[in-house]
């Protein structure tokens, strides 16, 4: 069990390290095509990363170890999330159940690392980004946990692999209103957490409208490369999670070369479809004013809440 889980963990992390920049490249490419551009190609994020790793890092006076350690923490937390989420398969370490609460808190470690980097730079921009980022993170939290609650009710556990396995056994449950409401809520939370439209504009150049970008304005070279990679891996893992919950088929229940290969292919397909859909959706959206973001989050909270209430009464009523 442990060896199988270790193999699966390695496969998942490696796959996400390789795939997540390509996913971002794909999303940019979809967007470029819809805008009538040619686009830089899906491999452009990888070219950017390669270049950034070769560049020097600058450290301004007054900044501290957070500037250099923060990016490493972010990448490590994203990698841990990639292990905890059933992306390719549902085999887990016996002592480390893929508990959703644990996953969320590991994700939050990365959030905190980013926020501290923003504050450490000591510029007005960094503080601004950090403050907005944390405000949104705080308000997303109820949606995420209540959605988790809704998902956990049918199986009586917050373990992701159990939830996915249960969905495999009973495909009808995926399309039930409860599950759909919870997934929509979770998806809005993912959008907010990873700084996509309409909460944050990932391609903005205007400091005053930034959230994520403002925090990393001060980072350069390999620090920036780690930060980008870490954020992309988060995006990939969370989209993969939504994908696994929405379309659980093809996910590996045990560790053999064939099942792993099928799981991996399914993961690539799911990520490609979800990423393209997200990017295409973003073309139609304008960024929300910062103080209207709580409305969006309150809405997603209501959906999650309805999912919980309904599932109680539907299951037992």
């Amino acid at each position, binding site marked *: 069990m442990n060896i199988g889980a270790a193999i699966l963990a390695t496969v998942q992390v490696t796959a996400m390290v390789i795939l997540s920049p390509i996913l971002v490249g794909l999303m940019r490419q979809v967007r*470029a*095509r*819809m*805008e*009538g*551009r*040619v*686009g*830089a*190609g899906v491999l*452009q994020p990888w*070219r*950017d990363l*390669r*270049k950034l790793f*070769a*560049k*020097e*890092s*600058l450290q301004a006076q007054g900044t501290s170890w957070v500037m250099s350690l923060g990016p490493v923490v972010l990448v490590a937390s994203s990698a841990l999330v990639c292990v905890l989420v059933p992306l390719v398969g549902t085999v887990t370490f016996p002592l480390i159940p893929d508990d959703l609460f644990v996953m969320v808190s590991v994700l939050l470690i990365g959030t905190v690392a980013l926020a501290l980097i923003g504050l450490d730079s000591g510029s007005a921009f960094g503080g601004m980004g950090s403050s907005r980022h944390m405000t949104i993170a705080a308000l997303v939290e109820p949606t995420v946990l209540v959605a988790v609650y809704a998902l956990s009710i049918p199986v009586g556990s917050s373990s992701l692999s159990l939830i996915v396995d249960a969905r495999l056994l009973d495909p009808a449950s995926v399309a039930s209103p409860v599950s759909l409401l919870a997934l929509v809520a979770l998806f809005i939370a993912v959008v907010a957490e990873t700084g996509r439209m309409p909460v944050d504009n990932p391609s*903005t*150049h*205007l*400091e005053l409208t*930034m959230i994520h*970008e403002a925090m*990393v*304005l*001060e*980072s*350069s*070279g390999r620090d*920036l490369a780690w930060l980008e990679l870490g954020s992309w891996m988060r995006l990939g893992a969370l989209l993969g999670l939504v994908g696994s919950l929405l379309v659980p088929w093809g996910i590996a229940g045990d560790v053999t070369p064939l099942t792993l290969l099928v799981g991996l292919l399914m993961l690539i397909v799911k990520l490609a479809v979800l990423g393209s859909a997200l990017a295409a959706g973003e*073309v*139609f959206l304008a960024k929300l004013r910062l103080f209207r973001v709580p409305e969006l989050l309150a809405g997603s909270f209501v959906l999650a809440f309805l999912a919980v209430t309904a599932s109680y009464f539907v299951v037992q009523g």
Partner: protein
Amino acid sequence: MSLIGLVRLIRRTGRVAEAAPPLPEGSLGRPASLAGSVQVRHVDAGSCNGCEVEIAAAFGPVYDAERYGARLVASPRHADLVLVTGVVTRNMAQPLRRTVEATPRPRMVIAVGDCARNCGVFAGAYGVAGAVGDVVDVDLEVPGCPPEPDAIVRALRQVTGR
């Protein structure tokens, strides 16, 4: 515009980017690590905004400089290339030096437009500190008043090599 209207517009418009011209012969001593990916920080050192319009066009859908791996960024910390326009006014001389200094190495500086190269029509004006080359080291110059987007894209392609 409604959702359906936007979908129609997207479908009707299709691709607006012009076909890529052949890769210019670059004899530029560019750092090998910048191949394929160049992040650009733009500094307006005292321009009349004519060059800005052209730069915007170069990164717009028609010329689409992004397809060659160049991208505008918000901070010199993220940049490899500083794109300077306009004569350097007295108030902008120090910020320009700081911006170049804030860019991690290997880095390059491109002076865009005649003003940036040799002060153009503003030469000798009282608020002018000099051309870009007088303040920081310039690696590449793009002539023109203002230069055409094509020229700017050519210069960028010399750096990215795509």
